[in-house]
């Protein structure tokens, strides 16, 4: 199943990708191109493989069949160090966003800078601005376990974009927050998309997807019956 190629050089390209778990096919024959600056929703029933699909996009999993190319590089050809360097260009937000619980929030958000060897002190102004952008200035010194669900999601988003990645992959970022917070997170992702970032967001919240479609041009992908399909206009 192939989806039409979008304009510009693709940031992520899947070629007849399939993934099986313990011999059972989760999905197969997926071909897809994601252009720079595009916004994609990934939806589907629970257990359809949305998280697995997203993990394939940033090399956390290897496909059983087919090829995944990110920034024109076949992930199969990358070793662990190569994958690590590639991930610095992809911001990932999980539903159960994990942090280093012993570090203050500000240090957690600076973690991508730390691991890439950049001078955190020199980036202090940017970090402060980012914390302010996600509305967590008053929580900068708090430890992650002290944060609410919505604060954790916003913090995870801030951490994902601090390196100014080309792609943002968000796995059900609004899964554990109320509607207002979902709207706020969506607004942040839309702003990032308007800055030229490619966004792929898994969500089963159709109301949220409809709300997004009023603000930004999106494509909705649906995993169903082990196949990736484009969702219809009925959304």
């Amino acid at each position, binding site marked *: 199943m192939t989806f039409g190629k979008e304009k510009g050089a693709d940031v992520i390209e899947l070629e007849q990708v399939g993934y099986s778990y313990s011999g059972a096919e989760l999905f197969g024959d997926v071909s897809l191109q994601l252009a720079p600056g595009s916004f994609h929703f990934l939806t589907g029933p629970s257990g359809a493989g949305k998280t697995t699909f997203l993990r394939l996009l940033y090399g956390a999993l290897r496909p059983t069949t087919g090829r995944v190319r990110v920034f024109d590089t076949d992930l199969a050809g990358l070793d*662990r*160090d190569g994958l*690590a*360097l590639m*991930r610095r260009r992809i911001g990932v937000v*999980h539903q159960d966003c*994990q942090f*280093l619980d012993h570090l203050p929030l500000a240090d957690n958000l600076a973690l991508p800078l730390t*691991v890439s060897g950049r001078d955190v002190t020199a980036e202090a102004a940017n970090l402060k601005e980012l914390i302010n952008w996600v509305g967590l200035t008053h929580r900068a010194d708090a430890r992650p376990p002290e944060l609410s669900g919505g604060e954790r999601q916003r913090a995870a988003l801030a951490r994902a974009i601090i390196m100014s990645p080309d792609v943002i992959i968000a796995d059900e970022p609004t899964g554990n927050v109320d509607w207002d917070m979902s709207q706020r997170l969506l607004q942040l992702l839309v702003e990032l998309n308007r800055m030229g970032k490619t966004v792929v967001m898994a969500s089963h919240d159709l109301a949220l997807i409809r709300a997004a479609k009023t603000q930004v041009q999106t494509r909705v992908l649906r995993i169903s019956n082990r196949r990736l399909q484009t969702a219809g206009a009925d959304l």
Partner: protein
Amino acid sequence: MSGKDVKALILGDAQADRVVPPTGFTARLTLFASGAMAFLAVFALALSMASGRLATRWADELARSATVRISAPADQMAAQTEVALRLLRQTPGVASVRAFTDAEQAALLLPWFGPDLPLDDLPVPRLIEVIETAEGFDAAGLRLRLQAEVPGAVLDDHTRWRRPLVVAADRLRLLGWISIALIGGAMAAMITLAANAALAANRQVIEVLRLVGARDAYIARAFVRRFTIRGLFGATVGMGCGVLGILFLPQVSDEGGFLTGLGFTGLGWLWPLVIPLLAAVVAFFATGFAAHRTLRSLA
């Protein structure tokens, strides 16, 4: 590990050092294991060095002296002794020779026969002490000459009983080194276990670090550096205690023999300083091995 990684490991990185949370149990285990092992290593080192000194002393002292024993009828004893002395003085490699006096021989036999030994009435052989030069003499050649010119003379160069003593001391020294190697191995095993426990307990930390683009070398370094420092610190304390223990041992004395000679002499006191460094090296490699194995399995 690249040169940059090694430099970062030695110099440290305040930010990177903080990514791994302090883990009480593994920290205490590493400190205790390295401290205890360093303490034992000091004694093993002292044993090895003391037995080494003993072997050298026995080898040197006994190798430089020999004895010629002359068993002859009483009327020929003085003549054969004179011939033997002359022959020995002419032998290359002999520094000095001296026949024991009757009083000296009586003193030698005193422990066995008591103070009133009538030496004149007993066929006691005459003993000649031979001191060798540094080059030594040809024992086989000397034996042949003595056999030809002094029929009652027997050369004893102490080889027969000196060799097992030297071998025993050498074995003791080897035992000391084997102990040090075993101590190092045991320490490596314990630190590996502690590192594995720390890595398992910090699985979430590793996942987060990978998610934000940390290379394996960075993650491994954070653990390796912490365990290396713990190993170094624990071993330094253990070594200090061990050296204090050695200092409080009784001083060297003839009466105490080998036991009171257990310790270090002169520059030998510097050797224990090597132990913490070796412990750090062991901790470095043990943790590095554990970290890379765990990171591979989590990939």
